[in-house]
């Protein structure tokens, strides 16, 4: 990673992020957080900021396929890595099945937790297409929702689980 020092002696770093399949090269400072690059530099404001301390999960994105809190990842640390945000789900105008399921199950009220919630659920379904309710609850344990009481969120995620072979429906 290239570091550049300006006349005032401030060091900046040239980083490349692969976000939702596109590559972006940006100049950031050491203290720039991934969440702020996404929101402020790339205009991907679907990723939210709540606690900014790793507790609430509203900033959840997938880093190389794994859910992480983008408020606790330095932009310089994400250099060269693949990032998937809520904007990267679905294709063209078509929503991702998880997004459809959240709507169909009324799994959101204010919606602030929703993008993080869906990213955690996405990672779960990618690695485990047919999770149990317990596994769903565990996967979203780092995503706090102040509105829904979680019941419909769990229902929505379970409705996207692959039907086991020979299953009904």
């Amino acid at each position, binding site marked *: *990673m290239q570091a550049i020092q300006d006349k005032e002696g401030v*060091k900046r*770093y040239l980083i490349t992020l692969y976000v939702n399949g596109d590559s972006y090269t940006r100049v950031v*400072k*050491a*203290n720039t*957080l991934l969440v702020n690059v996404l929101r402020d530099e790339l205009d991907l404001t679907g990723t939210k900021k709540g606690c*900014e*301390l*790793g*507790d609430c*999960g509203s900033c*959840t994105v997938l*880093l190389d396929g*794994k*859910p*992480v*809190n983008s*408020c*606790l*990842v*330095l932009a*310089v*640390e994400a250099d060269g890595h693949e990032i998937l945000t809520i904007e990267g789900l679905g294709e063209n105008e078509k929503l991702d099945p998880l997004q459809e399921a959240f709507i169909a199950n009324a799994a959101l009220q204010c919606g602030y937790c929703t993008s993080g919630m869906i990213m*955690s659920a996405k*990672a779960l379904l990618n690695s485990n297409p047919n999770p149990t309710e317990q596994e769903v609850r*565990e*996967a979203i*344990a*780092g995503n706090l929702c102040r509105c829904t009481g979680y019941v419909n969120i769990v229902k929505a995620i379970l409705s996207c689980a692959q039907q086991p072979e020979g299953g009904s429906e």
Partner: protein
Amino acid sequence: MYLPDFDYIAATSVAEASRLLASLGPEAKILAGGTDVLPMMKQETIAPKTLVSITRLDGLKAISLEEGRGVVIGALCTHNEVMKSSLLQEKYLSVCETAHRMANNQIRNIGTIGGNITNAVPSADFPPILIALGATVTLQSNSGSRSVLLEDFFTGPRQSVIRQDEILTEIVIPVNGFNGSTYHKFGLRRSGALAVVGVAVAVVMEGDLCKDVRIALGAVAPTPIRAREAEALLRGKEINDALLEEAGKLAAAASKPISDMRGSAEYRRDMVRVFTRRCLRKAIDQGHV
């Protein structure tokens, strides 16, 4: 919430990291997962001038069985990597279970076992079970490498024997014959909560006979501690329920908990009694083959 300014250097080797730490002094800190360092910097509890990132040191990311040494866990293994390691699941499931009970999925994907230890927070979850299993840590600097028994690593809250220029590179669980072990954590929530009380037990059982036992307590003293009187009571004895209850009382007496928003000292002490008994029962049943 923004981070204050600091300089960032990505180390490309342990030697380079050690050299940087030595030359920059106490104002430089290692950055591993950052799940502890970054929240503290945001809250202005600490203000390091430089973060030396070790996250690109891929040599510290493996979990392996080494002839004559035991199970070696690289310091940069994340909690989820520890949890999912098939080697650990086979050899020390209790360590995987400990990882599983920590933080939440997002934090488990970036927080490292080395950071959890070096941080030296009394409530940290990995130290009790690793102490019970007799683990050592390897501390490496440009003046050499030393192995320290994890039990002797901690000297106080957020204090340990690690020197400014040292990097914790690995955790070693030696071959030790323990055939039962477990860690029980009492937190205020099932997920994302620190331990109010943590108890770890490892035993060597031969039928009903307890050949060896180690009990380690977390979150109830300035550092994780061993409950040696309780261990001595059980060692060499045929186990029965009355003995386990007595061991729980001795472990509670060994604890020196504080009262805080998560629980009173009295409550913590009594939970040590209950959890010690439960952990012993579980570890003994595992070892009872």
